[in-house]
């Protein structure tokens, strides 16, 4: 298939990436700055035989997406901060019942209604810890329109393959940024797909998993007649409070993403080999950081950038190797200090970690990062 070069905004690339990944169901509720994703899906899905539905709120949207996925469709919803908060309970259901789905959060200024049209990166921790209870989170953080397209495709692959909700996290700037990208749908054989239950019903245990810790899913109509619940369940799928079985379920749920780190993790490194000053950033702040690294290098500062494209689970090994030569780490982020907490946790002894934050609705400029970095290496 030939690549189409197109001028697209990030939100459009997200919708087209979803369709390229095989998404055939979208349920959502309008909210700035994510609404274009819904509008594109409403227009595009019928063309590929898919279904678009605007639900009565974000809670219902998340529920409908899970319902469609339980029926066997690849399904997605998109929202922004306030709506992301509303989706959290059902997102936890998708974790517990292991239902593949993709949730896009186009971040805007908060808390509360905040600044609907201004960018922010203040949902880094909501994306990690938004739903209640101990749970793993899989969150991808693209930094360009092209990467929104490719990471949306990757999000579906990971969701389907690992039977987990996947959050795609980017900010308003990227959602509305227009860039020229090649939209090249991957060949079907390149997509990661869900494992469906096969074989006789007698032998099927809905939540029994093999070495890969991912159970095969029953497709309604295939004769397995499984039970799905958000209650703590054992391998039969029926509720249990037996401490041993409860622990076994949570061990597997928490271990599942750990086990598949090699598949999940993705990082981007710019000039980190000899970097004495390591910048860690995601999304639009990482774009500024890339420019800053170039400027700092020209000024003789050994700067580098580590960008966790997979934000959660945090790519710890990738960070450790990137930080190996560094004396100082700088974390520019458009919030009051969220990603920096993880960096502080992982930074080796003797490396100092600094944060450059702004939460006034403006993106961080390269010059700000350069100035902050020069202060640190002086």
């Amino acid at each position, binding site marked *: 298939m030939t690549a*189409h070069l197109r001028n697209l905004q990030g939100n459009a690339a997200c919708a087209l990436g979803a369709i390229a990944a095989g998404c*055939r*169901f979208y*349920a959502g509720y309008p909210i700035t700055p994510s609404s274009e994703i819904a509008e594109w899906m409403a*227009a*595009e899905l*019928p*063309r*590929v*035989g898919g*279904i678009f*539905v605007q*639900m*009565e*709120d974000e*809670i*219902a*949207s998340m*529920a*409908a*997406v*899970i*319902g*469609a*996925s*339980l*029926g*066997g*469709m690849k*399904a997605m919803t998109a929202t922004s901060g306030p709506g992301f908060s509303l989706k959290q*309970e*059902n997102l936890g*259901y998708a974790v517990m019942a292991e239902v593949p789905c993709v949730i896009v959060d186009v971040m805007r200024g908060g808390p509360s209604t905040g600044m609907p049209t201004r960018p922010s990166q203040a949902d880094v921790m909501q994306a990690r810890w938004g739903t209640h209870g101990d749970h793993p989170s899989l969150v991808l953080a693209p930094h360009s329109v092209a990467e929104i397209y490719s990471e949306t495709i990757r999000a579906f692959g990971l969701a389907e393959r690992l039977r987990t909700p996947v959050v795609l996290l980017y900010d308003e700037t990227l959602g509305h940024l227009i860039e020229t990208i090649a939209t090249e749908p991957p060949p079907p054989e390149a997509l990661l797909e869900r494992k469906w239950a096969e074989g006789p019903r007698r032998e099927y245990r809905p939540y029994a998993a093999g070495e890969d810790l991912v159970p095969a899913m*029953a497709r*309604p*109509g*295939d*004769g*397995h*007649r*499984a*039970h*799905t*619940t*958000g*209650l703590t369940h054992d391998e039969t799928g*029926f*509720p249990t409070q037996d401490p041993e079985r409860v622990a076994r379920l949570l061990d597997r749920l928490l271990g599942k993403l750990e086990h598949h780190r090699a598949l999940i993790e993705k990082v981007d490194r710019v000039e980190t080999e000899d970097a004495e000053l390591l910048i860690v950033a995601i999304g639009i702040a990482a774009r500024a950081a890339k420019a800053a690294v170039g400027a700092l290098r020209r000024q003789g500062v050994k700067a580098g950038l580590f960008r966790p494209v997979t934000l959660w689970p945090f790519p710890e090994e990738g960070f450790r190797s990137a930080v190996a030569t560094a004396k100082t780490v700088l974390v520019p982020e458009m919030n009051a200090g969220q990603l920096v907490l993880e960096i502080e946790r992982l930074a080796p002894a003797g490396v100092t970690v600094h944060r450059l934050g702004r939460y006034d609705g403006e993106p961080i400029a390269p010059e700000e990062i350069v100035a902050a970095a020069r202060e640190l290496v002086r």
Partner: protein
Amino acid sequence: MNEIALTSADRFDIRDWLRLEMFPHFLCPGCGHGLALRAFLWAVHELGIDRDALAVISGIGCAGRLSAYVDANTFHVTHGRPLAFATGLKLARPDLTVVVITGDGDGLAIGGNHLIHACRRNLDLTCLLLNNEVYGMTGGQVSPTTAAERYTTTTPAGNCEPGFDACKLAEGAGATFVGREATLQVPTLKNLIREAIAHKGFSFVEVISDCTEIFGRKNALGNSPEMVLRQKAGMRPDNWGNKVDRPFRPNPFPTGVFVRKTRPEYLELYEAMTAAARREERD
């Protein structure tokens, strides 16, 4: 006497439809929800629905727990949201018969908004709302259908809110099939549920159930048979609207089918209206 020949396939044995490995069940002795489940399974049996193509989605509560006992594709979802989950499932899988079981708290309080919009949307779903006037599962708190002045654990001095009429709500919101029956007459309830499932479009059935253990005790309504007799005293069969004996029937509620109409079903309409786009070649 005429003998009617019944083949074993015709005969309804509830055990054929239950996951017996889940027994003993969790319901309190005398709980009306068990009768509602019986009527539902009987209806499904009479309709000849293939259990592999039957999906039962329930929310959280004693009513919500029922799905786990049904030998079908069953989904026990989050509190108040079964209709929203069902909307996604049915849109993705129109080949399935999708039935939602919800409670008065699940379907009218936390899930009230989803009920309104499911009625309006008219997707081919059936919603069975088991109304026992109380939050049974959480220990007997007041619900949106608790009658005025009743005692619950959160209205120790009596309920100062009026209970509301779920059928009128469903009708007002545009449901194309609306009916109510009590667990007093299981065959009548079965017939109503049967018609509701067979109806094309969104159908809403309110089942007057009884929480004997908690609501019954708290309000001194007697044992389970006495509570069922109270249902009888309150009923207006076939929507008679007979007001003559009202003073003798303190809590009257009409039963029967209140709405039975046709309106284009949601998915059929969606497919028809997007047909042009569906034919378009993607560039």
